[in-house]
Protein backbone atom coordinates (compact mmCIF):
# COMPACT_ATOMS: atom_id res chain seq x y z
CA UNK A 1 0.00 0.00 0.00
CA UNK A 2 2.84 2.32 0.96
CA UNK A 3 4.74 1.42 -2.21
CA UNK A 4 1.62 2.06 -4.26
CA UNK A 5 1.17 5.47 -2.65
CA UNK A 6 4.82 6.31 -3.31
CA UNK A 7 4.40 5.27 -6.95
CA UNK A 8 1.30 7.46 -7.35
CA UNK A 9 3.09 10.38 -5.69
CA UNK A 10 6.03 9.95 -8.07
CA UNK A 11 3.71 10.02 -11.08
CA UNK A 12 1.97 13.15 -9.77
CA UNK A 13 5.32 14.85 -9.25
CA UNK A 14 6.31 13.83 -12.74
CA UNK A 15 3.08 15.29 -14.18
CA UNK A 16 3.66 18.50 -12.19
CA UNK A 17 7.17 18.75 -13.58
CA UNK A 18 6.04 17.91 -17.14
CA UNK A 19 3.27 20.51 -17.06
CA UNK A 20 5.70 23.15 -15.79
CA UNK A 21 8.16 22.23 -18.56
CA UNK A 22 5.37 22.44 -21.15
CA UNK A 23 4.20 25.80 -19.82
CA UNK A 24 7.76 27.16 -20.09
CA UNK A 25 7.37 26.78 -23.88
CA UNK A 26 3.77 27.98 -23.82
CA UNK A 27 3.55 29.38 -27.34
CA UNK A 28 4.95 26.28 -29.01
CA UNK A 29 2.93 23.81 -26.98
CA UNK A 30 -0.37 25.68 -27.15
CA UNK A 31 -0.09 25.85 -30.96
CA UNK A 32 0.85 22.16 -31.01
CA UNK A 33 -2.24 21.36 -28.90
CA UNK A 34 -4.42 23.47 -31.20
CA UNK A 35 -3.19 21.71 -34.35
CA UNK A 36 -3.49 18.29 -32.73
CA UNK A 37 -7.01 19.08 -31.48
CA UNK A 38 -7.86 20.25 -35.00
CA UNK A 39 -6.70 16.95 -36.50
CA UNK A 40 -8.76 14.92 -34.00
CA UNK A 41 -11.72 17.25 -34.55
CA UNK A 42 -11.66 16.80 -38.33
CA UNK A 43 -11.22 13.02 -38.13
CA UNK A 44 -13.88 12.74 -35.42
CA UNK A 45 -16.31 14.95 -37.32
CA UNK A 46 -15.98 12.84 -40.46
CA UNK A 47 -16.35 9.66 -38.46
CA UNK A 48 -19.47 10.84 -36.59
CA UNK A 49 -21.00 12.41 -39.69
CA UNK A 50 -20.55 9.44 -42.00
CA UNK A 51 -21.73 6.91 -39.42
CA UNK A 52 -24.75 9.09 -38.54
CA UNK A 53 -25.69 9.61 -42.18
CA UNK A 54 -25.15 5.94 -43.04
CA UNK A 55 -27.47 4.80 -40.25
CA UNK A 56 -30.01 7.54 -41.01
CA UNK A 57 -30.04 6.63 -44.74
CA UNK A 58 -30.60 2.98 -43.82
CA UNK A 59 -33.52 3.78 -41.53
CA UNK A 60 -35.15 6.20 -43.98
CA UNK A 61 -34.61 4.33 -47.22
CA UNK A 62 -35.64 0.86 -46.08
CA UNK A 63 -39.07 1.77 -47.48
CA UNK A 64 -37.67 2.45 -50.98
CA UNK A 65 -39.12 0.44 -53.90
CA UNK A 66 -38.10 -3.23 -53.99
CA UNK A 67 -37.17 -3.15 -57.68
CA UNK A 68 -36.98 -0.18 -60.04
CA UNK A 69 -36.78 -0.95 -63.74
CA UNK A 70 -35.13 1.64 -65.95
CA UNK A 71 -34.82 1.56 -69.72
CA UNK A 72 -31.33 2.11 -71.09
CA UNK A 73 -30.60 3.61 -74.50
CA UNK A 74 -26.95 4.04 -75.56
CA UNK A 75 -25.82 3.68 -71.96
CA UNK A 76 -28.24 6.31 -70.72
CA UNK A 77 -31.40 6.17 -68.67
CA UNK A 78 -34.36 6.70 -71.01
CA UNK A 79 -38.16 6.87 -70.74
CA UNK A 80 -39.63 3.39 -70.45
CA UNK A 81 -42.67 2.26 -72.51
CA UNK A 82 -45.61 1.50 -70.22
CA UNK A 83 -46.22 -1.58 -72.40
CA UNK A 84 -43.26 -3.17 -70.55
CA UNK A 85 -45.45 -3.30 -67.46
CA UNK A 86 -47.59 -6.08 -68.90
CA UNK A 87 -44.54 -8.14 -69.85
CA UNK A 88 -43.06 -7.82 -66.35
CA UNK A 89 -46.40 -8.66 -64.74
CA UNK A 90 -46.29 -12.04 -66.44
CA UNK A 91 -43.11 -13.04 -64.60
CA UNK A 92 -43.95 -15.53 -61.87
CA UNK A 93 -43.57 -14.03 -58.43
CA UNK A 94 -44.28 -10.45 -59.45
CA UNK A 95 -46.99 -8.97 -57.25
CA UNK A 96 -47.49 -5.61 -58.92
CA UNK A 97 -45.93 -3.24 -61.45
CA UNK A 98 -46.60 0.46 -61.57
CA UNK A 99 -45.16 3.40 -63.42
CA UNK A 100 -43.19 6.11 -61.75
CA UNK A 101 -43.21 9.61 -63.15
CA UNK A 102 -40.48 11.89 -62.00
CA UNK A 103 -37.87 14.23 -63.39
CA UNK A 104 -35.91 17.39 -62.84
CA UNK A 105 -36.72 21.03 -63.33
CA UNK A 106 -34.14 23.79 -63.37
CA UNK A 107 -35.56 26.96 -61.89
CA UNK A 108 -33.77 29.92 -63.52
CA UNK A 109 -35.24 32.32 -60.95
CA UNK A 110 -33.04 31.02 -58.13
CA UNK A 111 -30.75 28.73 -60.12
CA UNK A 112 -31.91 25.62 -58.27
CA UNK A 113 -32.73 22.10 -59.43
CA UNK A 114 -36.03 20.63 -58.28
CA UNK A 115 -37.15 17.02 -58.32
CA UNK A 116 -40.64 16.76 -59.77
CA UNK A 117 -42.62 13.69 -58.88
CA UNK A 118 -46.11 12.33 -59.44
CA UNK A 119 -47.44 10.50 -56.38
CA UNK A 120 -49.81 7.52 -56.76
CA UNK A 121 -52.65 9.29 -55.11
CA UNK A 122 -52.25 13.04 -55.58
CA UNK A 123 -55.01 14.58 -53.49
CA UNK A 124 -54.36 18.26 -54.27
CA UNK A 125 -55.62 17.93 -57.83
CA UNK A 126 -54.61 19.52 -61.12
CA UNK A 127 -53.09 22.99 -60.96
CA UNK A 128 -51.81 22.43 -57.43
CA UNK A 129 -48.45 21.34 -56.10
CA UNK A 130 -46.80 20.38 -52.84
CA UNK A 131 -43.27 21.64 -52.34
CA UNK A 132 -40.35 20.94 -50.05
CA UNK A 133 -39.23 23.31 -47.33
CA UNK A 134 -35.99 24.04 -49.21
CA UNK A 135 -37.87 25.42 -52.21
CA UNK A 136 -40.26 27.36 -49.99
CA UNK A 137 -37.30 28.97 -48.25
CA UNK A 138 -35.48 29.85 -51.47
CA UNK A 139 -38.51 31.11 -53.39
CA UNK A 140 -40.18 32.69 -50.33
CA UNK A 141 -43.26 30.74 -51.37
CA UNK A 142 -45.82 29.54 -48.86
CA UNK A 143 -49.11 27.64 -48.80
CA UNK A 144 -51.67 29.34 -51.03
CA UNK A 145 -49.04 31.18 -53.12
CA UNK A 146 -48.70 30.79 -56.86
CA UNK A 147 -45.48 29.34 -58.28
CA UNK A 148 -44.67 29.58 -61.95
CA UNK A 149 -42.84 26.93 -64.00
CA UNK A 150 -41.84 26.94 -67.62
CA UNK A 151 -43.36 24.22 -69.78
CA UNK A 152 -41.72 22.48 -72.76
CA UNK A 153 -42.99 25.21 -75.11
CA UNK A 154 -41.44 27.90 -72.96
CA UNK A 155 -44.83 29.16 -71.83
CA UNK A 156 -45.27 29.76 -68.10
CA UNK A 157 -47.40 27.29 -66.16
CA UNK A 158 -48.78 28.45 -62.84
CA UNK A 159 -49.47 26.23 -59.86
CA UNK A 160 -50.95 26.94 -56.48
CA UNK A 161 -49.02 25.63 -53.50
CA UNK A 162 -51.40 23.33 -51.65
CA UNK A 163 -48.92 21.91 -49.16
CA UNK A 164 -45.39 22.39 -47.88
CA UNK A 165 -43.62 19.26 -46.71
CA UNK A 166 -42.64 19.28 -43.06
CA UNK A 167 -39.28 20.56 -41.94
CA UNK A 168 -38.63 17.16 -40.34
CA UNK A 169 -38.64 15.52 -43.77
CA UNK A 170 -36.22 17.97 -45.38
CA UNK A 171 -33.50 15.40 -45.84
CA UNK A 172 -35.67 13.66 -48.43
CA UNK A 173 -38.00 16.45 -49.55
CA UNK A 174 -36.05 19.74 -49.59
CA UNK A 175 -36.13 19.93 -53.42
CA UNK A 176 -39.28 17.90 -53.99
CA UNK A 177 -42.29 19.14 -55.96
CA UNK A 178 -45.25 16.80 -56.27
CA UNK A 179 -47.69 17.43 -59.12
CA UNK A 180 -50.62 15.67 -60.74
CA UNK A 181 -49.98 13.23 -63.59
CA UNK A 182 -51.77 15.47 -66.11
CA UNK A 183 -49.70 18.50 -65.14
CA UNK A 184 -46.47 16.52 -65.26
CA UNK A 185 -47.15 15.00 -68.66
CA UNK A 186 -48.36 18.36 -69.96
CA UNK A 187 -45.28 20.17 -68.68
CA UNK A 188 -42.77 17.84 -70.33
CA UNK A 189 -44.87 16.69 -73.34
CA UNK A 190 -44.75 13.13 -72.10
CA UNK A 191 -47.28 10.80 -73.67
CA UNK A 192 -49.26 8.19 -71.75
CA UNK A 193 -47.19 5.48 -73.48
CA UNK A 194 -44.06 6.23 -71.48
CA UNK A 195 -43.01 6.63 -67.86
CA UNK A 196 -39.73 7.58 -66.16
CA UNK A 197 -39.28 4.07 -64.76
CA UNK A 198 -41.28 1.20 -63.29
CA UNK A 199 -41.67 0.03 -59.72
CA UNK A 200 -41.97 -3.72 -59.24
CA UNK A 201 -43.20 -5.43 -56.09
CA UNK A 202 -42.55 -9.12 -55.57
CA UNK A 203 -44.40 -11.65 -53.44
CA UNK A 204 -41.35 -13.21 -51.84
CA UNK A 205 -38.43 -10.87 -51.01
CA UNK A 206 -36.04 -13.83 -51.34
CA UNK A 207 -36.84 -13.93 -55.06
CA UNK A 208 -35.82 -10.32 -55.72
CA UNK A 209 -32.53 -11.18 -57.43
CA UNK A 210 -34.13 -13.99 -59.50
CA UNK A 211 -36.92 -11.74 -60.69
CA UNK A 212 -34.42 -8.98 -61.53
CA UNK A 213 -32.49 -11.49 -63.68
CA UNK A 214 -35.73 -12.59 -65.39
CA UNK A 215 -36.61 -8.96 -66.17
CA UNK A 216 -33.24 -8.46 -67.89
CA UNK A 217 -33.69 -11.72 -69.83
CA UNK A 218 -37.17 -10.69 -70.94
CA UNK A 219 -36.31 -7.03 -71.61
CA UNK A 220 -32.57 -6.78 -72.36
CA UNK A 221 -32.69 -3.00 -72.77
CA UNK A 222 -33.67 -2.51 -69.13
CA UNK A 223 -31.74 -2.21 -65.89
CA UNK A 224 -33.30 -3.31 -62.61
CA UNK A 225 -32.16 -1.56 -59.42
CA UNK A 226 -32.82 -3.47 -56.20
CA UNK A 227 -33.62 -1.80 -52.88
CA UNK A 228 -30.60 -3.51 -51.42
CA UNK A 229 -28.44 -1.79 -54.04
CA UNK A 230 -29.92 1.60 -53.09
CA UNK A 231 -29.03 0.96 -49.46
CA UNK A 232 -25.56 -0.26 -50.38
CA UNK A 233 -25.06 2.91 -52.42
CA UNK A 234 -25.40 4.93 -49.23
CA UNK A 235 -23.22 2.48 -47.35
CA UNK A 236 -20.54 3.14 -49.95
CA UNK A 237 -21.07 6.92 -49.96
CA UNK A 238 -20.68 7.09 -46.20
CA UNK A 239 -18.18 4.31 -45.61
CA UNK A 240 -14.59 4.99 -44.50
CA UNK A 241 -13.43 4.23 -48.03
CA UNK A 242 -15.85 6.79 -49.48
CA UNK A 243 -14.57 9.81 -51.37
CA UNK A 244 -15.88 12.09 -48.62
CA UNK A 245 -13.88 10.25 -45.99
CA UNK A 246 -10.75 9.89 -48.10
CA UNK A 247 -10.60 13.54 -49.16
CA UNK A 248 -10.78 14.79 -45.58
CA UNK A 249 -8.92 11.87 -44.05
CA UNK A 250 -5.95 12.33 -46.34
CA UNK A 251 -5.47 15.98 -45.35
CA UNK A 252 -5.84 15.20 -41.66
CA UNK A 253 -3.57 12.17 -41.74
CA UNK A 254 -0.82 14.04 -43.58
CA UNK A 255 -0.89 16.94 -41.16
CA UNK A 256 -0.75 14.44 -38.33
CA UNK A 257 2.21 12.66 -39.93
CA UNK A 258 4.05 16.00 -40.21
CA UNK A 259 3.24 16.66 -36.55
CA UNK A 260 4.47 13.28 -35.38
CA UNK A 261 7.47 13.39 -37.73
CA UNK A 262 8.54 16.73 -36.28
CA UNK A 263 8.42 15.17 -32.83
CA UNK A 264 10.09 11.92 -33.81
CA UNK A 265 12.99 13.35 -35.82
CA UNK A 266 14.51 15.03 -32.86
CA UNK A 267 14.37 17.55 -30.13
CA UNK A 268 15.55 21.10 -30.00
CA UNK A 269 18.97 21.91 -28.52
CA UNK A 270 17.16 23.44 -25.55
CA UNK A 271 15.22 20.25 -24.87
CA UNK A 272 18.39 18.19 -25.17
CA UNK A 273 20.18 20.50 -22.74
CA UNK A 274 17.27 20.14 -20.32
CA UNK A 275 17.59 16.36 -20.39
CA UNK A 276 21.34 16.66 -19.94
CA UNK A 277 20.88 18.81 -16.84
CA UNK A 278 18.27 16.43 -15.43
CA UNK A 279 20.68 13.52 -15.86
CA UNK A 280 23.50 15.54 -14.34
CA UNK A 281 21.42 16.22 -11.23
CA UNK A 282 20.74 12.54 -10.80
CA UNK A 283 17.75 11.59 -12.97
CA UNK A 284 17.79 8.05 -14.31
CA UNK A 285 17.23 7.33 -17.99
CA UNK A 286 13.93 5.72 -16.97
CA UNK A 287 12.87 8.95 -15.22
CA UNK A 288 13.59 10.99 -18.35
CA UNK A 289 11.56 8.54 -20.44
CA UNK A 290 8.75 8.65 -17.89
CA UNK A 291 8.69 12.45 -18.14
CA UNK A 292 8.57 12.29 -21.92
CA UNK A 293 5.82 9.67 -21.69
CA UNK A 294 3.74 12.00 -19.53
CA UNK A 295 4.45 14.85 -21.94
CA UNK A 296 3.02 12.76 -24.75
CA UNK A 297 0.02 11.74 -22.64
CA UNK A 298 -0.73 15.32 -21.50
CA UNK A 299 -0.68 16.70 -25.03
CA UNK A 300 -2.38 13.82 -26.82
CA UNK A 301 -5.02 13.06 -24.19
CA UNK A 302 -5.99 16.75 -23.94
CA UNK A 303 -6.14 17.10 -27.72
CA UNK A 304 -8.10 13.86 -28.05
CA UNK A 305 -10.70 14.79 -25.44
CA UNK A 306 -11.15 18.33 -26.77
CA UNK A 307 -11.19 17.14 -30.39
CA UNK A 308 -13.83 14.46 -29.76
CA UNK A 309 -16.09 16.82 -27.81
CA UNK A 310 -15.79 19.55 -30.43
CA UNK A 311 -16.48 17.03 -33.22
CA UNK A 312 -19.59 15.79 -31.42
CA UNK A 313 -20.89 19.33 -31.00
CA UNK A 314 -20.07 20.21 -34.60
CA UNK A 315 -21.84 17.20 -36.13
CA UNK A 316 -24.84 16.75 -33.85
CA UNK A 317 -25.51 20.25 -32.55
CA UNK A 318 -24.27 22.44 -35.42
CA UNK A 319 -25.46 19.99 -38.15
CA UNK A 320 -21.89 19.50 -39.46
CA UNK A 321 -21.87 23.08 -40.74
CA UNK A 322 -18.24 22.89 -41.87
CA UNK A 323 -19.13 20.06 -44.28
CA UNK A 324 -22.03 21.99 -45.79
CA UNK A 325 -19.97 23.69 -48.54
CA UNK A 326 -18.48 20.29 -49.44
CA UNK A 327 -21.90 18.66 -49.79
CA UNK A 328 -23.53 21.69 -51.33
CA UNK A 329 -21.06 22.22 -54.18
CA UNK A 330 -22.74 24.51 -56.66
CA UNK A 331 -26.25 23.58 -55.60
CA UNK A 332 -28.59 26.26 -54.34
CA UNK A 333 -30.88 24.04 -52.29
CA UNK A 334 -29.50 22.34 -49.23
CA UNK A 335 -31.64 20.65 -46.61
CA UNK A 336 -31.65 21.98 -43.07
CA UNK A 337 -31.51 18.87 -40.96
CA UNK A 338 -30.20 17.60 -37.66
CA UNK A 339 -28.32 14.34 -37.85
CA UNK A 340 -29.47 11.66 -35.45
CA UNK A 341 -26.47 10.88 -33.26
CA UNK A 342 -25.40 7.30 -33.70
CA UNK A 343 -22.02 6.81 -32.11
CA UNK A 344 -20.34 3.59 -31.24
CA UNK A 345 -17.64 2.93 -28.69
CA UNK A 346 -15.44 1.29 -31.33
CA UNK A 347 -15.49 4.51 -33.39
CA UNK A 348 -14.08 6.53 -30.50
CA UNK A 349 -11.61 3.73 -29.70
CA UNK A 350 -10.43 3.66 -33.33
CA UNK A 351 -9.93 7.42 -33.24
CA UNK A 352 -7.95 7.04 -30.01
CA UNK A 353 -5.64 4.39 -31.45
CA UNK A 354 -5.19 6.38 -34.66
CA UNK A 355 -4.13 9.57 -32.93
CA UNK A 356 -3.01 9.17 -29.31
CA UNK A 357 -0.87 6.03 -29.55
CA UNK A 358 1.31 7.07 -32.56
CA UNK A 359 1.90 10.51 -31.06
CA UNK A 360 2.90 9.17 -27.65
CA UNK A 361 5.30 6.69 -29.26
CA UNK A 362 6.72 9.46 -31.47
CA UNK A 363 7.44 11.52 -28.36
CA UNK A 364 9.26 8.79 -26.46
CA UNK A 365 11.52 7.44 -29.24
CA UNK A 366 13.77 10.52 -29.79
CA UNK A 367 14.09 11.13 -26.05
CA UNK A 368 15.36 7.56 -25.63
CA UNK A 369 18.28 8.48 -27.90
CA UNK A 370 19.01 11.66 -25.98
CA UNK A 371 18.45 10.14 -22.55
CA UNK A 372 21.09 7.47 -23.13
CA UNK A 373 23.91 9.78 -24.18
CA UNK A 374 26.43 11.42 -21.92
CA UNK A 375 24.95 14.47 -20.09
CA UNK A 376 28.24 16.35 -20.35
CA UNK A 377 28.25 16.23 -24.16
CA UNK A 378 24.53 17.19 -24.32
CA UNK A 379 25.06 20.21 -22.08
CA UNK A 380 27.94 21.41 -24.27
CA UNK A 381 25.55 21.69 -27.27
Amino acid at each position, binding site marked *: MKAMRAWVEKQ*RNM*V*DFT*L*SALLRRKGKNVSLLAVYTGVVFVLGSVMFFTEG*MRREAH*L*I*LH*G*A*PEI*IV*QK*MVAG*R*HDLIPTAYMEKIRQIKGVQSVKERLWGYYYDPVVGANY*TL*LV*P*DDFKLGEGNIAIGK*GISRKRLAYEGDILSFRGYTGDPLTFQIGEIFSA*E*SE*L*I*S*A*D*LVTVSEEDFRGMFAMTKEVATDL*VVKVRNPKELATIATKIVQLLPDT*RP*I*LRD*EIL*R*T*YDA*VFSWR*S*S*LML*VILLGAVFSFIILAWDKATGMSAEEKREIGILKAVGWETSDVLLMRFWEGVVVSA*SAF*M*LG*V*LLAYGHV*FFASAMLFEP*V*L*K*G*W*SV*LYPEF*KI*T*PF*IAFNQVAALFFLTVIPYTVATIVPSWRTATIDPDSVMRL
Partner: protein
Amino acid sequence: MLSARKSDLFFLFITASTLLIGIAFLHAEVQAARNLPRLQQQAQMVEKYDLTDLALCTEARYTRHPSQADRHTAFQDHPVSLEHFPTGSVIGPSHHLK
Protein backbone atom coordinates in the same frame (compact mmCIF):
# COMPACT_ATOMS: atom_id res chain seq x y z
CA MET B 1 -3.92 29.64 1.05
CA LEU B 2 -4.01 26.20 -0.56
CA SER B 3 -3.24 26.16 -4.26
CA ALA B 4 -4.10 23.16 -6.45
CA ARG B 5 -1.22 21.24 -7.93
CA LYS B 6 -0.87 21.32 -11.71
CA SER B 7 -1.25 17.53 -11.85
CA ASP B 8 -4.53 17.76 -9.91
CA LEU B 9 -5.86 20.31 -12.41
CA PHE B 10 -4.79 18.09 -15.31
CA PHE B 11 -6.46 14.98 -13.89
CA LEU B 12 -9.54 17.05 -13.10
CA PHE B 13 -9.64 18.18 -16.73
CA ILE B 14 -9.24 14.61 -18.01
CA THR B 15 -11.95 13.33 -15.63
CA ALA B 16 -14.34 16.11 -16.64
CA SER B 17 -13.68 15.49 -20.33
CA THR B 18 -14.17 11.73 -19.94
CA LEU B 19 -17.41 12.45 -18.14
CA LEU B 20 -18.52 14.76 -20.95
CA ILE B 21 -17.72 12.08 -23.54
CA GLY B 22 -19.77 9.66 -21.46
CA ILE B 23 -22.62 12.20 -21.44
CA ALA B 24 -22.25 12.49 -25.24
CA PHE B 25 -22.79 8.71 -25.53
CA LEU B 26 -25.84 9.00 -23.30
CA HIS B 27 -27.13 11.98 -25.27
CA ALA B 28 -26.70 9.99 -28.50
CA GLU B 29 -28.77 7.12 -27.08
CA VAL B 30 -31.55 9.41 -25.84
CA GLN B 31 -31.60 11.53 -28.99
CA ALA B 32 -31.63 8.48 -31.29
CA ALA B 33 -34.65 7.12 -29.42
CA ARG B 34 -36.32 10.54 -29.52
CA ASN B 35 -35.68 10.89 -33.27
CA LEU B 36 -37.06 7.47 -34.11
CA PRO B 37 -40.63 8.73 -34.81
CA ARG B 38 -39.20 11.39 -37.17
CA LEU B 39 -37.15 8.76 -38.98
CA GLN B 40 -40.17 6.48 -39.19
CA GLN B 41 -42.21 9.36 -40.60
CA GLN B 42 -39.57 9.90 -43.25
CA ALA B 43 -39.47 6.18 -44.03
CA GLN B 44 -43.27 6.29 -44.52
CA MET B 45 -42.86 9.23 -46.87
CA VAL B 46 -40.23 7.30 -48.83
CA GLU B 47 -42.68 4.41 -49.13
CA LYS B 48 -45.62 6.63 -50.04
CA TYR B 49 -43.80 8.54 -52.79
CA ASP B 50 -41.49 5.70 -53.90
CA LEU B 51 -38.43 7.83 -53.18
CA THR B 52 -34.98 6.38 -53.60
CA ASP B 53 -32.41 8.94 -52.44
CA LEU B 54 -31.53 11.65 -49.93
CA ALA B 55 -31.87 15.28 -51.07
CA LEU B 56 -28.34 16.04 -49.92
CA CYS B 57 -26.53 17.19 -53.06
CA THR B 58 -28.95 18.77 -55.50
CA GLU B 59 -26.54 20.23 -58.05
CA ALA B 60 -26.26 17.27 -60.44
CA ARG B 61 -28.64 14.40 -61.09
CA TYR B 62 -26.02 11.75 -60.42
CA THR B 63 -25.35 13.20 -56.97
CA ARG B 64 -29.02 13.97 -56.24
CA HIS B 65 -30.05 10.41 -57.11
CA PRO B 66 -26.81 8.40 -56.97
CA SER B 67 -28.69 5.12 -56.78
CA GLN B 68 -30.57 5.88 -60.02
CA ALA B 69 -27.65 7.20 -62.06
CA ASP B 70 -26.26 5.23 -64.96
CA ARG B 71 -22.59 4.66 -65.57
CA HIS B 72 -22.30 7.54 -68.01
CA THR B 73 -24.37 10.24 -66.31
CA ALA B 74 -21.34 12.00 -64.91
CA PHE B 75 -19.87 12.33 -68.41
CA GLN B 76 -23.11 13.14 -70.17
CA ASP B 77 -22.41 16.54 -71.70
CA HIS B 78 -20.30 15.59 -74.68
CA PRO B 79 -18.03 12.70 -75.80
CA VAL B 80 -14.89 13.85 -73.96
CA SER B 81 -16.73 15.55 -71.13
CA LEU B 82 -15.13 15.39 -67.70
CA GLU B 83 -17.07 14.98 -64.48
CA HIS B 84 -16.98 18.50 -63.13
CA PHE B 85 -19.56 19.00 -60.38
CA PRO B 86 -17.90 19.55 -56.98
CA THR B 87 -20.13 17.03 -55.20
CA GLY B 88 -19.18 14.41 -57.78
CA SER B 89 -15.93 13.98 -55.84
CA VAL B 90 -17.86 13.42 -52.63
CA ILE B 91 -20.73 11.22 -53.79
CA GLY B 92 -19.11 8.27 -55.53
CA PRO B 93 -20.77 6.08 -58.13
CA SER B 94 -23.50 3.73 -57.01
CA HIS B 95 -22.47 0.37 -55.59
CA HIS B 96 -23.97 -1.65 -58.44
CA LEU B 97 -22.09 0.35 -61.07
CA LYS B 98 -18.65 -0.45 -59.69
